[in-house]
């Protein structure tokens, strides 16, 4: 592994019926990153670490970031259909690797239930989509956006929390957070952050899967990890200690190494 930062580009492209904010960098086989319900604020350190080995593609999903938000997208299943369309129109070679965070993990799982041939390997990180066996998924919409980021991190002194969230936001940043909430609310409102049919469809997934969970995930309880593991035949688990719902931001190096170990293994 070298220490030189991977170059990345940020552009707006018309793909799969929407105007997409697309961040990408690195080279090699494609690695699709599906962000969570809070959106993705930047080209992150974790993206950079992964881009040393893969061609990392991070679209802002419809409604998030500066991507457009057509009315027809009403559910996570619509979103997974859109991701399938996006992959094809982008010309990404398939099967490809995918990393999905929280809502993005749910999207990846939905896609894998309908087309296991799309992904070569799948990493689900603190994935939403299932009603937890114990505990409840934390309610973003009864709480403030500030609370949401606080709840997502175990370590409120971690560098990326302080850099992006643990400070006063500029008006533009605050508006972006609200825009992302507007998108999240349309996809996730009810049943809240889970599907009632996904549990029965998980056995359809043949994709080798890694489930990454922060031990202290305060958003999606770790009991959901067990449900995913029981449902997906070829799934292994990596629990990160002293870590919350956003391992990619809280512990970027450990997270990247965990993912790379699985993808390369």
């Amino acid at each position, binding site marked *: 592994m070298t220490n030189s930062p991977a170059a990345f580009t940020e552009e707006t492209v018309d793909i799969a019926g929407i105007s997409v904010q697309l961040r990408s960098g690195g080279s090699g086989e494609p690695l699709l990153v599906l962000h969570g319900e809070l959106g993705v604020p930047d080209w992150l350190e974790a993206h950079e670490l992964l881009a040393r080995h893969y061609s990392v593609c991070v679209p802002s999903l419809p409604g998030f970031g500066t991507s457009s938000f057509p009315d027809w997208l009403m559910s996570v299943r619509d979103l997974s259909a859109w991701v399938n369309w996006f992959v094809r129109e982008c010309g990404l070679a398939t099967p490809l690797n995918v990393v999905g965070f929280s809502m993005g993990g749910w999207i990846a799982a939905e896609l894998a239930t309908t087309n296991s041939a799309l992904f070569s390997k799948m990493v689900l990180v603190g994935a939403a989509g299932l009603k937890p066996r114990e505990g409840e998924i934390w309610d973003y*919409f*009864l709480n*403030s956006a500030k609370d949401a980021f606080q709840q997502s991190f175990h370590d409120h002194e971690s560098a990326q929390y302080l850099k992006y969230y643990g400070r006063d936001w500029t*008006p533009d940043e605050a508006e972006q957070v609200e825009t992302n909430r*507007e998108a999240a*609310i*349309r996809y996730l*409102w*009810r049943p809240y952050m889970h599907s009632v049919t996904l549990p029965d469809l998980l056995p359809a997934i043949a994709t080798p899967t890694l489930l990454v969970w922060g031990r202290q995930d305060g958003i999606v309880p770790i009991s959901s990890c067990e449900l995913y593991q029981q449902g997906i035949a070829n799934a292994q688990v990596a629990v990160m200690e002293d870590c919350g719902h956003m391992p990619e931001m809280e512990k970027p190096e450990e997270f990247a190494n965990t993912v790379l170990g699985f993808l390369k293994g």
Partner: protein
Amino acid sequence: MFIGHFTEEPWQKEDWPVEWGSGVMAVSNAEYDPVRASNLYHRYIDEKVYAEEMGFDGIMVNEHHSAPFCMNGVANVKASILARVTNKAKILLLGNILPIHDDPLWLAESLAMIDVISRGRLIPGVVRGGGSESLTHNIPPHYNRERFEEAHDFLIKTWTTPGPFRWEGKHFHYRYVNPWAVPYQKPHPPIWVPGTSSRETVEWCARHRYPYIMLASQIDLTQQMYQVYYDTAREVGYEAGPQHLGFMFFFHVEETEERAIEVGRTLTQGVRSPYDPGAQRPKPWIAGPPGIATKSARALRRKMTAADSSGRTRAGARATFEDQVATHGMVVGTPDSVIPKVRYILEQLRPGTIIFRTGDGAMDHESQMRTLKLMGEEVMPKLREIADELGLPGPYDIDPMTNEPVTAMAS
């Protein structure tokens, strides 16, 4: 002139902790004492009956959810009772929160029944509701406006089209629309719309020629919203007049000025609506989840909460009783002293409908009854003369749908 009466009908309890505020989504219903509640419900119904006796043209009820400041979680229940126990006053239902109904057919039939039982006295107003209504009923706030408009269209069709018919919309779907009960009033009961400051709602209302009742008791803000109504009306090809516009304000009247101030002050005490001036607001993400609060509304909110030059946030500035009296949002005094104050409001705004909000907050039943009596005997007759002098027809004088005089039979 149409004169209405309204009380928010709050929970009343002397030892309500100040930090609980209006209680919206903040207090467990373990606090709800059914015996106390039954007494309050009886009190508020009795007051409505008395308001009719004192000559009010309309008795208004509304609803809020998980909200102790308004005991009517289901306004249609109250309206149903009033439909039978009153005889003359319009039942001003302002209003049903259309987006939170997953089954607007149920709503259409409920309202038709109330209209029939009241023998055609129902005004079934419609509202979008606040964030707490969407959150408590788990209705997608992001589709609030779409659901409001589709439910409205569905109600009108259900009330005016002989069934059965089918409805395949975006949010509502029915294979057999044919409720047995249809409204007493034809072609359908008149729709009114209350609001505070949503420009989009005022425009929608004006396009439908529905009377718009401004609830935020502020003269300048009301003038701005009325202007939106006038402008929209011209765009769609008619002149809006007093019959299209209403204004609600706090009111208390007593035999002496000192008593009026002493008792009137209780309007700003107790379990108060979070939307009242100076009241404790719900948290912004509760009041305005995405979809309820538009991008422009969010920008306005940021502006309102920004610190002023003295470093004090505007939202933190509490409007006191004295502030509200000074800005005409609250009128208190003797029968003689309140008349010129209300005249000032009528001259400034030129509404065809005014709604007196009395007996609210921590005010007791006896004080409410005193004010209603004085209004009936001394205040309202004079105000009707002033309204005639100023040329302020209400929606039962000039039909807002046609701008033609209402005939006795139609009214």
